[in-house]
């Protein structure tokens, strides 16, 4: 029985896909058309009651929230693939810390940017220029902090790649490649080197190549 991942065309599901590839776990994907509103239909809401992607099914088991899913698989398959949780409880604590930073400080302003700059035109709704400006400012401030951190360590949690770095891939990709804000990363020497390092991992290249971003 193979893990099913819903919504591969979108950002958060890609967080799950790259993790499964790093852990050498087989999976299949199920498309969900967000633009047609498939995620608000009763059948989907039975799986994910908040009406967002991803959700996974693993046999009888259903789990949602991408960062819960990656924690589960990183721990369940500790013995295979890339170690994503550090080696000790203390290292894991630092991984958790930067995973939370990504969730609360990195993704939200980039998500706002993506909604206003990429999705608003498709949906024919006006873009909120104030929100875009606020997002740009927030992202710059957050990346200044990352620049300082990454001047002292190769990866966010230390000298090892972890779930914390991996979690940044889907929306980092949007930022650098699709929203015209690549300069925010490129102007920061250590963030730029870190981004090149993690985004060139074979696992991420596979995700980007096989599961096209919808915009």
């Amino acid at each position, binding site marked *: 029985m193979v893990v099913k991942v819903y919504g591969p065309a979108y950002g958060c599901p890609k967080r799950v896909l790259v993790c499964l590839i790093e852990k050498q776990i087989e999976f299949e994907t199920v498309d969900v058309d967000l633009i047609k509103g498939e995620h608000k239909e009763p059948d989907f809401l039975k799986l994910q009651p908040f009406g967002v992607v991803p959700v996974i099914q693993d046999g009888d088991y259903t789990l949602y*929230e991408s*960062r819960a899913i990656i924690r*589960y698989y990183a721990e369940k398959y500790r013995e295979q693939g890339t170690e994503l949780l550090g080696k000790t409880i203390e290292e894991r604590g*630092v991984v*958790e810390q930067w995973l939370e930073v990504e969730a609360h400080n990195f993704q939200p302003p980039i998500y706002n940017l993506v909604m206003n700059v990429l999705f608003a035109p498709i949906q024919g709704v006006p873009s909120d220029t104030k929100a875009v400006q606020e997002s740009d400012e927030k992202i710059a401030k957050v990346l200044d902090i990352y620049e300082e951190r990454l001047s002292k360590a190769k990866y966010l949690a230390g000298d090892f790649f972890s779930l914390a770095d991996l979690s940044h891939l889907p929306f980092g990709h949007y930022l650098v490649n699709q929203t015209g804000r690549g300069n925010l990363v490129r102007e920061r020497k250590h963030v730029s080197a870190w981004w090149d390092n993690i985004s060139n991992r074979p696992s991420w290249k596979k995700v980007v190549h096989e599961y096209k971003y919808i915009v």
Partner: protein
Amino acid sequence: MAAVKVYGPTLSTAVSRVLACLIEKDVQFEVIPVDMSKGEHKRPEFLSLQPFGQVPVFQDGNISLFESRAICRYVCEKYAERGNKGLYGTDPLAKASIDQWVEAEGQSFNPPSSALVFQLAFAPRMKLKQDQGVIRQNEEKLAKVLDVYEKRLSQTRFLAGDDFSLADLSHLPNAHYLVTGTDRAPLFTQRDNVSRWWNDISTRQSWNEVLHLHKTAY
């Protein structure tokens, strides 16, 4: 002197989250005040501990961590054998379900509830003008989230299953301020299952000890 130190005002929602977890896990700690009204959290000494200038910061021997939900997970792992052993699950599937609901709290419950707590409970005290548009928007968002909770809590006693867990605990601070510090308690009390759940989790001894610290710490 406790090995575990928590930096920040006890009244802070994120600090309270960590304190509740430490008390559930029966871990001794010391609270180190941070005077945010004087901008202590933006000074270099504090920023060297927490570069985003936010509370709490947590120290346990050699390790220094920030982000309250990361701290809680670390505490549950490090002190697995102490206090409430089931707080973060005793098997991988239980733990995953708890993580799912901790994430739901962080992603769906926290943003609108934090905005409402700020607008309705803190802005007036700080003599800041309330933004009615922000209040309306976030109330609608929170109502939708609580509708999902209402349905879930008709199936299970607590969010992740039939035992109290880190997922429920994570909701305590924001929900407490909404229910006791604003006139929006009906958001919780008018939903039968959410109301039952709120009564169960807010009357836990650990939460009452946190409320006591709100009044008495330093």
